[in-house]
């Protein structure tokens, strides 16, 4: 080895030594972690080399609470899991119990569940779009999305009396029928909402900065998506056409016509675009539901004190964030013996350390935003 080469190598070694990688603590209090999530990022300049998530800042042992409550009493607690899609959590839990206890619910309740659930999906995606805009620095989009979401909350408030934590579904149907004129209000909302989507597009989708920021960033390969059991828009963004509403239909989703948007590349843009299109599909589903909804009761006659037969069930639905599963073990008493929530964002978030390395800090924020986490659900 010549002297110059030796010298070069020494310089190289020294630079790799002195090029210190920096551990940056992103969170628990950080505007872009959407709650109290702590990410430990190893930064090489602006580039993320490694990411270690720390969870549990919101842990309240939802499952232990569930084991100490009667089946009906758990419903209000499910609201507090994914507080941006409470109706869907209600539905998922009630559906699990209904499957376990073999209760069938009236047709009107089924239709109302679909209508309300899809409105909830729109609301949830809206808030995702808004906060994602916030992550990318576009505050205006956030406010616009909130305005439309408020209208959905108004609709839900007229139904259930609550704006966030509805506790509206019951085992066997719904707590109440919708008030008079509510379905017309939903129709009016849809008519107002559809043109708004193109306004959002003007501000975000068509905008070059928006496109450049999220295209080709945070790629999640399909095999990784399956290995990490990602679900919902995360999975569909990676090019896998999988939607429980179509592939394992629950409720009456098999009666509805809708497309399942997928993105080919698995980058942040695809996840964004999948959610953006899902809003349109949800509008379509709600419109079909409004046309077909029959009159009748909304609550099946169920016993006051619900007891589930001995056994267990893993029931899953397609919540706005992905596969929301409930694993319930019943021992024949009024309370579940074991109650586990397979939170979609908990599982989706576990793929974050795979997606982050190699991208910049600004991308890290966008990628984390594209996972669409709700920390209350992640930590349970």
């Amino acid at each position, binding site marked *: 080895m010549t002297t110059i080469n030796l010298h070069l190598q020494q310089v190289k070694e020294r630079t790799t030594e002195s090029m210190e990688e920096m551990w940056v603590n992103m969170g628990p209090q950080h505007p872009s972690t959407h709650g109290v999530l702590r990410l430990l990022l190893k930064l090489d300049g602006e580039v993320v080399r490694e990411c270690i998530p720390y969870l549990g800042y919101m842990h309240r042992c939802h499952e232990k609470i569930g084991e100490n409550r009667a089946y009906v009493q758990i419903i209000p607690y499910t609201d507090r899991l994914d507080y941006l899609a409470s109706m869907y959590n209600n539905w998922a839990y009630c559906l699990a119990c209904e499957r376990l206890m073999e209760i069938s619910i009236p047709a009107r309740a089924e239709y109302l569940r679909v209508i309300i659930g899809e409105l909830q999906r729109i609301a949830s995606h809206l808030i995702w779009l808004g906060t994602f805009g916030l992550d990318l620095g576009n505050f205006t989009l956030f406010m616009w999305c909130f305005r439309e979401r408020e*209208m959905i909350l108004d609709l839900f408030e*007229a139904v259930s009396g609550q704006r966030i934590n509805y506790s509206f579904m019951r085992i066997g149907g719904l707590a109440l029928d919708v008030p008079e004129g509510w379905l017309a209000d939903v129709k009016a909302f849809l008519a107002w909402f559809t043109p708004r989507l193109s306004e959002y597009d003007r*501000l975000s989708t068509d905008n070059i900065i928006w496109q450049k920021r999220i295209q080709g960033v945070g790629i999640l390969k399909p095999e990784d998506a399956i290995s990490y059991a990602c679900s919902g828009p995360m999975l569909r963004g990676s090019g896998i056409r999988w939607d429980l509403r179509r592939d394992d239909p629950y409720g009456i989703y098999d009666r509805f016509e809708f497309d399942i948007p997928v993105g080919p590349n698995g980058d942040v843009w695809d996840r964004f675009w999948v959610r953006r299109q899902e809003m349109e599909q949800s509008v379509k589903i709600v419109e079909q539901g409004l046309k077909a909804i029959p009159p009748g009761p909304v609550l099946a006659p169920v016993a006051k004190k619900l007891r589930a037969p001995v056994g267990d069930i893993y029931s899953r639905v397609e919540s706005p964030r992905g596969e929301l599963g409930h694993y319930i073990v019943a021992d024949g008493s009024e309370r579940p013996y074991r109650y586990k929530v397979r939170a979609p964002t908990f599982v989706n978030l576990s793929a974050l350390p795979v997606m982050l390395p190699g991208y910049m800090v600004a991308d890290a924020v966008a990628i984390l935003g594209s996972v669409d986490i709700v920390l209350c659900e992640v930590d349970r």
Partner: protein
Amino acid sequence: MWRYLREIWRGFWSILLSMQITLRYLFTRAVTVQYPEEKRQLPTRALTQHVLTIDLESQELKCTACDMCARICPANCIHLAGEGKGKARRPKWFVIDHNLCMYCNLCVEVCPFDAISMWTGKYELGGFSRTNLVYDMETMHADGFYPTIMTPRSPPGAAAKAPAAPGGGKGGGKG
């Protein structure tokens, strides 16, 4: 070269388009409700403070202290004791700790006598101490007709007053 220039033009043009839509919004009406001056009209079903409903003729509480609501409450925030036997049974004391209440409406749904309601429209519940949110029978005693799940619409007979029953479940203001 051509692609380069077209890319620049596309970027410039898309930014102009975005600016056009924000400019249009600059002149639209704001949707904010200026809260203390203006108040939002709540729908009938808005869950607010608990109230113990009364029989409008005899002005007596409908509650028979059957403890159903206290048993169903997931947060364990309802406590009561009754006195008397049979039909004459009435609550001796009745306490709801609103600090714990999750507004699930289960207590109202389970009540067989239509004796408790959350559709009261009283939502300004703030106080300076946690004990302000612990309601006893006196604070929850209804002063007139309140809609409930069994009688959701209007009071029977025109004589009764309806303190908080805004009409229909409208979806709030639009645009």
